């Protein structure tokens, strides 16, 4: 099938914003296109449109071209192509890349260059992928719109007035705009799935521990995950397979055997039991998202799934538990940014304690400071049990509710976010408003279960809507199978934003092969 799709394209221009890894890789393998051509086309695309989208903090153009030429030389010399040979990927800028600046979109790390690769980066490179650059995010991944970036906000490629979601907004925007073929994001409370939903792509948060966090700049360690952001479900399975698996450098790494995720891509969900938690259809859900979700349920039924309503009362307390736990862990994790070993150091103090407090005060943005203060507050002796202890007990409850529901359901579905992408500036004044954007995505982070967002519709203004599918811990197969069946029966993942209208110059959207 892949071969046919690729052959159909021969002689016609390859449109970068329609390009999938599973189509591109066989073409590179058959030498129908060189890695250098692909990388050069992506870089051209970035230089033509990224001044409008602003997905990237750093573009590693020279290094990417060098790697591309090396790959072409190896292939020309008869060496076999590695699994991801020549695949241009974007990496969220809170994931460490050796020799390539990694800022977490914070002033504090503006000049930080890691001397080692995160495990996920090492695995992608070993398989032949080429790092195109580092994408924008909310500072230290704290936010839902990429407006908390200390560098600049990223725009939604579907409508530049709107946010791309967050915190992995740069990764999501880069993929849908054709500035990368695939990307990695990180997800602590929805930061992969919500921007995937806002930008109309596929974003997967794996089970806790399935993908190593070594080299991820930690925010809330008990809920941090790295995962793929791609144009379709097959690419998602491909990238997940490339990065998942045991790593001794992550103490919570899952030691079990893993399946070949591309093998569960069977478009058949007959008899699959799909639960809909009624708490996901509460008063906060917008009408257009509800309509699209209801149609998605009809589609799942049409495909033979048995859709049942379930109730998980603890879900309504998830957001509160999430903010207590994530802020507490953040206040502890971010203690490492002290201006001593790396990062920003304030001048004008003559003792170390003042230097640390000043460096942190000057180097962190408002959302980060607010969460450190909240985290310190809920961990203080007089509040510990009332807030932190209670949040951890609620977390047990949420996890138990999920476990019970998965005894009767193969997977759960709900909307990914209550609304479509909102306008820039709309929620920046009110942190609570912003937090509500994550209300449907935080429960899987509390419980450590996998969740994926896939496109399931568009509103009347053409903005994408996401469907979230969740499954039992380490059952990514059920998740991918349901996602694949839905995707193959719908057309939403084939629609593209009209990037060309934002630029007068040729947007580098096509590449002839």
């Amino acid at each position, binding site marked *: 099938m892949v071969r046919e799709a690729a052959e159909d394209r021969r002689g016609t221009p390859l449109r970068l914003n329609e390009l999938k890894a599973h189509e591109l890789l066989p073409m590179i393998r058959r030498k129908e296109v060189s890695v250098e051509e692909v990388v050069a086309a992506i870089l051209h695309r970035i230089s033509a449109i990224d001044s409008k989208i602003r997905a990237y903090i750093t573009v590693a153009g020279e290094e990417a071209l060098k790697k591309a030429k090396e790959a072409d030389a190896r292939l020309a010399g008869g060496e076999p192509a590695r699994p991801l040979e020549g695949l241009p990927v974007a990496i969220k800028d809170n994931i460490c890349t050796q020799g390539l600046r990694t800022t977490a979109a914070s002033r504090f790390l503006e000049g930080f260059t890691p001397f080692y690769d995160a495990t996920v980066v090492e695995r992608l490179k070993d398989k032949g992928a080429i790092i195109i650059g580092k994408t924008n995010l909310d500072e230290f991944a704290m936010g839902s719109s990429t407006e908390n970036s200390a560098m600049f906000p990223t725009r939604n490629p579907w409508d530049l007035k709107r946010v791309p979601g967050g915190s992995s907004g740069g990764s999501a925007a880069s993929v849908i705009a054709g500035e990368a073929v695939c990307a990695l994001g990180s997800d602590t409370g929805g930061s992969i799935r919500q921007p995937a939903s806002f930008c109309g792509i596929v974003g997967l948060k794996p089970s806790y521990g399935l993908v190593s966090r070594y080299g991820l700049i930690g925010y809330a360690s008990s809920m941090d995950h790295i995962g793929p952001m791609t144009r379709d479900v097959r690419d998602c399975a491909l990238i997940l397979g490339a990065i998942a698996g045991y790593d001794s450098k992550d103490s919570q790494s899952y030691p079990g055997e893993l399946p070949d995720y591309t093998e569960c891509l069977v478009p058949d969900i007959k008899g699959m039991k799909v639960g809909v938690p009624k708490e996901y259809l509460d008063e906060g859900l917008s009408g257009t998202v509800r309509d699209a979700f209801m149609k998605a349920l009809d589609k799942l039924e049409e495909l033979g799934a048995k859709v049942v309503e379930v109730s998980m009362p603890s879900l309504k307390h998830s957001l509160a538990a999430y903010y207590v736990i994530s802020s507490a862990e953040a206040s502890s994790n971010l203690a490492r940014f002290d201006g001593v*070993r790396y990062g920003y150091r304030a001048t004008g103090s003559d003792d170390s304690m003042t230097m640390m407090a000043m460096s942190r*005060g000057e180097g962190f943005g408002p959302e980060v400071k607010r969460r450190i203060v909240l985290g310190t507050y809920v961990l203080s002796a007089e509040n510990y049990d009332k807030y932190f202890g209670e949040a951890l007990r609620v977390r047990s409850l949420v996890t138990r509710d999920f476990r019970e529901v998965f005894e009767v359901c193969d997977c759960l579905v709900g909307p990914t976010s209550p609304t479509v992408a909102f306008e820039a500036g709309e929620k920046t004044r009110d942190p609570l408003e912003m937090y509500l954007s994550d209300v449907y995505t935080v429960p899987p982070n509390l419980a450590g279960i996998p969740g994926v967002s896939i496109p399931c519709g568009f509103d009347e203004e053409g903005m994408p809507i996401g469907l979230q599918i969740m499954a039992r811990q380490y059952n990514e197969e059920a998740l991918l199978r349901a996602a694949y069946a839905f995707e193959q029966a719908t057309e939403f993942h084939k629609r593209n934003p009209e990037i060309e209208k934002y630029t007068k110059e040729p947007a580098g959207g096509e590449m002839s092969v």
Partner: protein
Amino acid sequence: MSITKEDVERMSILARLELSEDEQSLFAEQLSEISRIIDSLAEVDTEDMDEMIFPSELGNVFREDTVLPSADPEEALSNAPDREDRFFKVPRILEVD
């Protein structure tokens, strides 16, 4: 719960985080607002529930105590704001009479 400016100031000292007067007032106001959802935790009946730290059943993970290569000192110092020889350099940490 209502978080006061004094609470914010106290937390900022504990967290070694310098905040301006304006930031302290703003955060007190915003965190009091945010605490409305956090306070709802008290309504939940969690009597039989344990505190769940990690969403995995791995528990404590042990490894053999073997020596492995660690960072090269030059690499480890490569991002230092200030250094002297093979050391990170900081302003004074002790009071001098």
